[in-house]
């Protein structure tokens, strides 16, 4: 519950923030460089005198959007692959599961870095720098998060397809696609939702990590990780610059973990004591 409140507050703050705090994110003011938090700048300013609060509101939109979009990709891809493997069985299943295991044993961060390094230039010229980087980061993070979902869905399919109600649907002459869409899939989504919640947190961390390594969003798009990356060279004179975005990432991830834990307890019939 606390998790829902904190996450809701942050999402709300990020969404309506620009109206409550109408300061431009690229408003450069050299007289107010690296200022500590004050009334004029509640979260202080950075090395160009830009307001950290305004940049964090903007960055929060980016970070949260990446998190949710990557989660959607991971869930859609995972459900699709898991469903195909669960319905097909046999050699198709074996190949898909081998692929899943292969992806699970890939070290994700190096591959993320490698793919972004290789494809960044092409996408930038294709659809422009901002959207290009956004699509790339979301797609790549999603691509490395679908495996747990696929396994869950496959396991659910294996048990559900033998259940009486599916057999009844089959006896009534329902086509395979109708069985899957109307009967099996809706019943297998419980654990997927839990996994999806945790995926949002993982995707936000992945995006922040990329930006923190200087390989995510360009400097004019201040996502939270990017803010930390810019701030890390000024830790001794302007610690507030790093602390606020770091705390924001931490709070979002913590509240999502709490929500995930709560959902799992609520959906898991095997309760501990």
């Amino acid at each position, binding site marked *: 519950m606390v998790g829902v409140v904190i996450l809701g507050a942050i999402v709300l703050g990020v969404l309506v923030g620009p109206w409550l705090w109408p300061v431009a994110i690229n408003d450069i003011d050299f007289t107010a460089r690296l200022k500590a938090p004050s009334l004029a700048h509640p979260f202080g300013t950075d090395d160009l005198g830009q307001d950290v609060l305004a940049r964090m509101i903007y960055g929060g939109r980016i970070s949260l959007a990446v998190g949710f979009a990557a989660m959607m990709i991971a869930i859609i891809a995972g459900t699709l692959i898991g469903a195909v493997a669960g319905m097909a069985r046999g050699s198709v299943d074996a190949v898909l599961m*081998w692929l899943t*295991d*292969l992806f*699970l*044993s*890939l*070290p*994700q*961060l*190096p*591959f993320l*870095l*490698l*793919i972004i*390094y*290789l*494809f960044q*230039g*092409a996408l930038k010229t294709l659809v422009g720098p901002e959207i290009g980087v956004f699509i790339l980061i979301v797609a790549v993070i999603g691509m490395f998060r679908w495996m747990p979902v696929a396994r869950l869905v496959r396991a659910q399919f294996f048990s559900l397809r033998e259940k009486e109600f599916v057999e009844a649907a089959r006896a009534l002459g329902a086509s395979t696609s109708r069985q899957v869409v109307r009967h099996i899939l809706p019943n297998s989504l419980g654990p997927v939702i839990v996994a999806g919640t945790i995926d949002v*947190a993982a995707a936000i*961390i992945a995006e*922040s*990590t990329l930006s*923190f*390594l*200087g*390989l995510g969003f360009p400097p004019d798009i201040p996502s939270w*990780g990017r803010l*930390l990356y810019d701030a*890390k060279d000024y*830790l*001794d004179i302007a*610690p507030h610059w*790093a602390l606020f975005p*770091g705390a924001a*990432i*931490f709070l979002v*991830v*913590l509240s999502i*973990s*709490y929500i995930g*834990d709560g959902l799992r307890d609520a959906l898991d019939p095997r309760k*501990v*004591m």
Partner: protein
Amino acid sequence: MSKYLLRRLMIVIPSVIGISIVLFTVLALAPGDPFEELATNPNVPPEVRANLRAKFGLDDPVALRYVRWAGSMLVGDWGFSFASRIDVEHLILQRLPTTLIVIGMSQLLALAIALPVGIYAATRPYSIFDQIASTLALIGFSLPTFFTGLLFILVFSIHLDWLPFVYRADIAAEGWRFYWEHFRQALMPVAVLGLFQGASWTRFVRSAVLDVIRLDYVTTARAKGLAERAVVMKHVVRNALIPVVTLVALQMPTIFGGAIVTEQIFRVPGIGSLLISAILANDTPVIMAVTFVLSCLVILFNLIADVLYGWLDPRITYR
């Protein structure tokens, strides 16, 4: 045991091949040219570039290029770093020990935290200790490593001035001072990684022990009059560790990811910071080699986990 090992090794080979295929496909699909560096350099005439392309076989079909690349990887010819002008395999051998030491020490720290805390918390579920430990574990694994790293630098290097925050390979000291300096500079990276891993492992250990501790054979052991300590250590923990080993093996890719970030924050001269600097310098051979080495390390640790598995649960070995 040796038969089991052999069977596991047979499974490793296709995984390595699979990863090398994925890696090569990514590179082959990527737009742009690994020789772009030379193409933009006005001192290199086009015919030299064409000769180089022919020499490295870049105009051949993809499958042929893959076979040749895999062959040269096998015999240890990993290419030549564009940026540092030395062979990639030397570069990696230079950097690998540091990374392995930092990761290894942080894993030991994580185990030293996770095992006692997780077991103690699970033997007294929902006690005050358990609640504090669970909350701290949740906080610990929600704090991304790059943020804890910065916090540590802020507190221990800048405010308290106890520890150096730049890792140096060339320490001008001898004898015990040498080791002391190394210990001091390794402390923060190891702590950052170890605490993060320790937090998530504590959760694993706690739930695994909780699953086992209420089984009937544990009650039997207690009914035999065994001391509580012997029941927990001999009967519960050994069985609870089996799922934990699996989860730890699945976490291996994340651990290497964390190591890359930590090395970058503390400027540890390891394989992770090599990867980042290679990416920033467009040094394709080094990037490919480091990614491949990291993938192989993940597979190696999965193999070790499998062997541990066989040791923890003899039923698996002689199946």
